[in-house]
Each structure stands twice: as C-alpha cells, then as structure tokens.
C-alpha cells in the first residue's frame, strides 16, 4: 500500500475538524484515538474532544448509546478541538440523529449505509429515512456499506461474519485516513502490537483498514482528498498526551524532584479513575497506590501517609471532594502537605459524570467547615496538567499545606501534542524533614514545638521515626508554638489569622499576573482552567483582525497572583468565561471590586473559540455604539 501522506492531487487545507460518532460498541474512541496518533506523528497540531455516555453499554443503536470523538488537526498552532466539525462519520442512525446539529453547514457526512435499516432508524427516532427525505440536503453525503465490505474482506481470512463486523471501525478509519492523507504505517503497526497474539483479530482489523483505504480510491472519492501540512511547532521532541496521563506523570515528576515517595489514596470515580490506573502501573518509581473503601478513607489514608513523610495525593471528582471535606479541614489544621486532585464533571450530585464542567471552584475555595483556607491551582490544557501537578505538589510540600488541584473532564480525556520537557530543567522542590528540637524549655532542655514557624509561617515537618521529636497533631485547636491542645480564645484567633496569612503570603513567591495581548486593551478575557484553549483561539482570531483585546489566565486561584487587581482595573471591560454559573467572577468582584461580567456555559461541553470570539466582538461594538 502506498503512503498517501503527500498525495499530489490532494487539496491543501489549514485544518479540519472530524467527528467520529457511533454506538458505544462501535469503537469510536479507539478510531478517533488512532486517527489522532497518526496525525500527531505526521506533525500536525491537534486537539481532541472525546465524548462518551455514562453507561458502559447503553442499549445498542439508541441515542443514549452514542459515543463520539472529535479531533481538530491543523497546520497552524491550535488550542481547541474546533468550533464545529466539517466531517461527521456516522456509524449508525443514532449517531447521525444526535450529532448532525453540530456539523458545519455544507459539511460532509460519511455514513455506514448498512446500519441505516428500519430497526436502527426507529431506535434513533427517525420516522423517515434521512437519506431519502431531503433532510440532509445541503450536506455532502457519502454512503458506504462499511459492515458488508468489512465482512467481505474478512471472509477469505476465515473470520466469522459476526466477528468481522467488529472491525468495521477500522474500515472507517482506513477510509478517513485516505481522505485526509494520513500515513498508514503507524496504524498498521499499532494494530499488530495492540492485538499481538490474537492473529485473527490482527488479520481482520488490518484487512478492514486496508479495504477502507482502498475504497476511497476505487469509489472515486478523489475530489474529497485533503492534505494538512505538518504544523510549524517549536522544535523538539513531542508526544501526544491527554490530561489525566500528563497529570499522573506530573505527580511522579514531583515525587522525583522532591526526593519523596509518592502515595496515592483514591476511590474509583469518573473522570478521575485513569489517574489511579496510570499511577498503579509505576510502582518502580516507588509509587504506592491505595484503592480505599471510600472517598473519605482515600483522603484519610493519604493524610496518614503525609504524616509519615510521603508526598500524599488523593484523586477524585466533585462528589468525592464533598465527601473528603472534613478530612481536608483536618489537613488544614494539622498543616500537612497533601494534594487533592478534583477532575470536575457536571453536577450537582451524579450530574453528568462523563461530561465536563468547571463548577467546583467555590467548593475548592470555601467548601469546608470553619475558616480553612488552602491554595487552589488549576490546570489549563491537557499537556499543561503535567506542570500544574508539579506546581500543586511544590506548594503543598514547600508550604506544608493541602492544595486543591483542579482539572476537568475535558482536559482529562482530551489530548494534544506535548513538547517534552528536559527533565533536568524541571523545577526543584525544596523540602526537608525536621531532625532536631527547635526550642528550649524552662529547664534548659531541648524540646520540639510542632507549631513553631519559620519566616514564611511554615511549621516543621517531623516524621515518625525521628528521635526526640515525638508530637501529637489533630483537629483540636493547637497552641501557637508548642502545639498542645488549646481552648484559649485569643490563641484561636491568632491561629486562624496565621492559617490565612501563611497561604496569602505564598503569592509573594509566585510570578506576578501575566497579561497577554495588548495591556491597554479595552476588553480583557479572564479565564481559569480549561477555557484557556477557547480563549486562546478567540484571541488569535480577534488580534488577527487588529482588535484590541487582552487575556489573563489565572493558574493560581488562591492566593491570586500579585498585581491581578490593578491589572483588572486597567481594562474598560472584564469578561470572565466559565463553565459554571459565574464562580471566578464572584471572587474577582468580591476581592477587587471590579465590574467583571460573566459568560457562562453549563452544557457538559467546553466553549468553542467561535462562541467567545463573537461575545468579544459584540462587546466591542456595544462599547463603540
């Protein structure tokens, strides 16, 4: 088979957005993932958006069972999975029914013709066949009998028809790979590796993939062939990575940088479980993973490990953070390092477990009993989850405090190319245990005060096994200094102030606020977390048109970076796009008395760049008018 990566007759485009949609059992996530990997290796910039139902196997053929994977591939730097797909691969009627409204006007539909039979149409809720009722007028429709053709190429291989049908996603992948001039070798190699030892499966998938590829040529789909040149990304070595993997590796990197063993206490929960899975693989780094009996035990075990001197982590999603609240309060009181990772999802309650949302910010800030301030760090892109994880661990260890690290379902599962850092250049994490008594008592004997503080108000971390430093910590208020139980009102006031002050002071060690775009701009977009991609995309388009806009992205949500208030006050308009009903905007208004305005989306999906672009344009024209 020839590699058509640079087919001479292909039409060059900057970017395409392809959406693979099918039944949960159709392997759409895998198909999208392979297409992405081939594009990554080819050198495109890309961003993905996997979307799958909460049910493992919803009834086949129904709308509830539709699983989709959207990817934007580009020859230019990009930061989102695209505003709207230009190509929709629909493996069954339900996929077409649920996802057609996302397709760009005039877009292309590649449909598995065999699946559009009466029963499936009915299950999807079609009264008439959409191929015949004119509802697809205005789109380019390519009907391909994928199931039948896959069965046919598999038959001579001795593969049973039912088994052969399972390979039809590889047929689709082959066809789309041909249309988008993707190299075929990475996929063929991957099939051979992934299914090693299962020769029949390798043969069927390979045959289906090749048949799909060949179909493009023979069916004269040549006019649809498109090529997307490699992007000119900064030079270096890249890998394609999703947020949860990057975050897991960041935790391991922090453990290496700090020279401390990593302990993870976790309870399975979507969309955070993959971090537990990933870390459980890397025991050779000294990583201890503990799958606890519940969320509370998970955080409690982590705090126990932190008391023992480990870099302690607990990973969860919003409902789990709610359950962990009391224990996190204890960690605030005991001033022990701990990182709580919240991969946010749609809420409240079970909400939309597989869909993204960023509505836990106020819980991260205030969702505990008592006055219990703690740092909050948010990741902003899939690959940047690596850096955010290191930063959260650094703050936890250097300042002996629990830290909330926020990511979300979109970052967790989406992927993008990551310029691999030089591991020698990773930030150092400066941490040490107390080894000596730090006070002298009235009798002149050396004693250890667990709540004696350094100039940054950080208390010493004395771990069990250290002679002479035996001490007791716990949730009852402790005396400032000696750390004995104290009910003294003045002491409680002082300790409360110190707990707030020591977190606020972290800002002095952080970089000041960074304003991107034009500093004197009329409008500033202020974001946190995963809105970064869409804001970047909007900024690129707006500044390309010469519009006067700025962007501040807040990674440290508590404490805020120094200079944020002044920066915000320098703009005529501050717009805060959030995947919630307006949480950061409340904080900014309360903290800085600025008239920041929220733009909110709570639909289980990230913003698109187009949505934000149009809001800014509208604002600018209002301001002029």
């Amino acid at each position, binding site marked *: 088979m020839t590699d058509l990566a640079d087919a001479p007759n292909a039409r060059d485009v900057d970017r395409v957005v392809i959406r693979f949609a099918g039944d949960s059992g159709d392997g759409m996530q895998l198909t999208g993932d392979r297409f992405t990997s081939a594009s990554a*290796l080819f050198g495109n910039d890309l961003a993905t958006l996997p979307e799958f139902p909460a049910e493992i196997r919803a009834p086949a053929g129904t709308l509830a069972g539709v699983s989709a994977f959207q990817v934007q591939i580009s020859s230019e730097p990009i930061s989102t999975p695209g505003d709207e797909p230009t190509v929709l691969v629909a493996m069954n009627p339900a996929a077409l029914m649920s996802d057609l409204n996302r397709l760009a006007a005039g877009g292309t539909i590649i449909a598995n013709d065999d699946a559009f039979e009466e029963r499936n149409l009915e299950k999807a809720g079609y009264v008439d066949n959409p191929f015949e009722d004119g509802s697809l007028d205005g789109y380019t429709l390519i009907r391909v009998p994928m199931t039948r053709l896959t069965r046919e190429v598999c038959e001579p291989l001795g593969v049973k028809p039912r088994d052969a049908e399972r390979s039809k996603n590889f047929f689709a992948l082959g066809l789309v790979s041909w249309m988008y001039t993707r190299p075929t070798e990475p996929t063929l190699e991957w099939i051979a590796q992934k299914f090693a030892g299962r020769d029949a499966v390798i043969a069927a998938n390979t045959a289906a993939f090749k048949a799909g590829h060949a179909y493009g040529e023979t069916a004269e789909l040549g006019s649809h062939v498109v090529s997307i040149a490699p992007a000119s990304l900064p030079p270096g070595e890249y890998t394609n990575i999703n947020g949860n993997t990057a975050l897991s590796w960041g935790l391991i990197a922090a453990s290496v940088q700090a020279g401390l063993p990593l302990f993870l206490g976790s309870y399975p929960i979507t969309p955070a479980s993959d971090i537990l899975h990933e870390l459980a693989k890397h025991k050779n780094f000294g990583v201890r993973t503990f799958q606890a009996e519940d969320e509370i035990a998970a955080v409690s075990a982590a705090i126990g490990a932190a008391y023992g001197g480990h870099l302690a982590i607990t990973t969860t999603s919003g409902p789990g953070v709610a359950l962990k609240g009391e224990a996190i309060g204890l960690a605030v009181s005991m001033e022990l390092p701990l990182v709580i990772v919240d991969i946010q999802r749609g809420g409240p309650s079970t909400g939309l477990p597989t869909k993204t949302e960023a509505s836990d910010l106020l819980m991260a800030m205030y969702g505990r009993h008592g006055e219990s301030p703690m740092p909050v760090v948010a990741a902003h892109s899939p690959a940047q989850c690596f850096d955010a994880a290191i930063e959260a661990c650094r703050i936890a260890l250097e300042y002996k405090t629990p830290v909330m690290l926020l990511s979300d379902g979109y970052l967790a599962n989406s992927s993008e190319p990551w310029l691999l850092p030089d*591991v020698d250049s990773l930030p150092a994490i400066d941490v040490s245990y107390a080894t000596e008594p730090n006070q002298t008592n009235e009798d002149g004997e050396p004693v250890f005060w667990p709540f004696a503080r350094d100039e940054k108000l950080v208390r010493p971390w004395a771990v069990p096994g250290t002679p002479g430093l035996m001490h007791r910590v*716990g949730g009852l208020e402790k005396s400032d200094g000696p750390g004995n139980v104290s009910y003294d009102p003045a002491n409680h006031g002082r300790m409360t102030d110190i707990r707030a002050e020591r977190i606020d002071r972290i800002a002095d060690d952080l970089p000041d606020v960074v304003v991107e775009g034009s500093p004197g701009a009329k409008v500033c977009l202020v974001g946190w977390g995963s809105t970064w991609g869409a804001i970047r995309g909007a900024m690129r388009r707006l500044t390309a048109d010469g519009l006067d806009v700025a962007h501040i992205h807040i990674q440290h949500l508590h404490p805020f970076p120094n200079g944020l208030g002044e920066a915000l006050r320098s703009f005529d308009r501050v717009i805060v796009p959030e995947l919630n009903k307006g949480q950061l905007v409340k904080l900014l208004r309360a903290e800085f008395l600025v008239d920041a305005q929220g733009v909110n989306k709570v639909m289980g999906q990230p913003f698109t760049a187009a949505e934000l672009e149009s809001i800014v344009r509208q604002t600018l024209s209002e301001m002029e008018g």
Partner: protein
Amino acid sequence: MTDVETTTTRKDWATDQEVRWCPGCGDYSILTAMQLMMPELGVSREDTVFISGIGCAARFPYYMNTYGIHSIHGRAPAFATGLAVARPDLSIWVVGGDGDMLSIGGNHLIHALRRNVNVNILLFNNMIYGLTKGQYSPTSEVGKITKSSPYGSLDQPFNAVSVAIGAEASFVARTHDMDRKHMQEMFRRAWEHPGASLVEVYQNCNVFNDGAFDTISKRANRDSMLINLTHGEPIKFGADAERGVVMDGGDAVIVDVADVGEDALVVHDERRPNPAVSFALSRLAAGPTEPTPIGVFRAVERGEYASANSAQLASAQEQAGPGDLAALLRSNPTWTA
C-alpha cells in the same frame, strides 16, 4: 529505623498534658495499663504512633509520648492504614470507642481488618456516647433509655467481636478495664500479631453508663461470669471450673462439666483457619450480663497488607529497574519537530 531505647519507664511514655477524662472513667486504667506495658515491648517511642478518631477514648494519643494523630470521627483506621502502607517500619496503634469504630467508622474498621494491615486497634466499648453526653450507641442494648431514646432504643446492637470475625479479622480479642494484667496481655498479643488486630476493651463510662459491665467484671462476679479463653485448653469457668462450653450443632453452649464430662468441652483453638467456632464463642453472651468470653478468640497467620505492598514495589523495581522520568515521558510514540 533507630536503635531501640533500651530502658524506658512509664514516665517516658507519658506526656506532660493533663489527662482530662471524668474522674473514675475506665479510660484511666487502660491508659495506665498501656503506659506500663510499653517499656516492656522493646520498641522505641519515636517508632510508635497512636492514632484516634473522635470521642472520649480518642484523647488517648495526647497522653502517650509517642507520635500521634487525633484525627476525625470514625476515620482512624483509614489514617492508620495510609501510614502503615507508607511506613511499614512503624508500630501503629488505633484507639477509638464504640461510636467511633462501629457507627460512623464501621466501614473503615471492617476494611482495615479484611486487608490485614499491621495496626493494633483498641476498641473501648462503653456501650454509650460519652463525649456527646449520653446518647445510645451501636453497642447499647435494645430498649436503652437515653436522652436520644427516651422511649427506649430500637436498634439491635453490634457485638464487636462478631463483627470483627465476620470482617475476616486475623486477630480478635476481648478484655476489660478492671483487669490490668489481662489488658496488658491482650495488648501485647495484638502488638505481636503481624496484621490487623482488634482488641475490644469493655470500658466503664461512670458518667453516662455506670456499671454496664459490673455483672461480669466486678471482682466477686468474675469467676462465674468471665470465660477465659486459653489456646489449647478446654473452655471452663466458674470458681471450681465447674462450668464449660461445648459445641452443639454449630452453637456454643454452656454446660455443667459434671453433666458432659471433661472430654466433651471445646478445646480452644485460636489458630483454627475456619472462624466458625470463634464466631460461635462470640455469640455466647448477648450482652455483658451473661457469662462472657474474654481473651483471644482468633489469631491466624495471613498475609499482611503493607508488607505485601512493599514486596510489589520491590519486585516492580527489580523487573523494570528504578524509575526513569525521561523514559516515562517517552513511553508513548514520540516525534521530532
């Protein structure tokens, strides 16, 4: 870790903090038993950690001059599990009451026991909520009149030993606060046991449930009401060892030895893999008003969790070599731009 401090005394194991239980509380005698026993174990204070939840019993760590965590209600076994997994070198004790361990923390207790993580769990059972001033607890008898049950409680109580045996515990014992020597023996056995140990300590709350155990633990009643379990010995009790226990169709039953003959008595075997007989013994008394077994119900060898975890780490390191961060970042396909 460090060299064991060879000679310590009770004073070395006590903190300078004023002990704040009600005068006459059974917790004092448990604390004394512990402080007196620790010097004999040959373990150093810095390698010892006491972890508690919330409740009267949970103040225990503040009085032990070791490392300690006074954690949150019910979760002490979970904190201890994390610490034990992270630091298998430490000697870890968990202290809590019946509300702490069997109500709000019941889940953590049973999971610590089934995992068999090497911690010694002391459950001070006073059959009442003390620190919240006298509500019925998960071990209170049915019909208990308290502030929260003025018409009598409706709840069937837990039998802590039965719960522990049902939760796959590898070591289960019971003792009471009126017998220092017996407490110390049980604590020592728990400490020696590699894995999770549960010791139920009947503890008098003289403020809210005074005399709850008098029927069995008053000196004059002990011979007739306490059934001492001794491994390898027929189970007998009474001033003249005139009563005993036989198995009858799966039930443990109290008999007069004269009626059945010595040979018919159950010979106590705490190491029996099948927990059925230990469980049957735990059912002998519906509450501390009937002849009640004390001693070690069960002590079986079973893989310990934290050391198994360490072994997995060691073997992963042996197979894959020590972690290499640069290689990890390149473990998926990479390309160069």
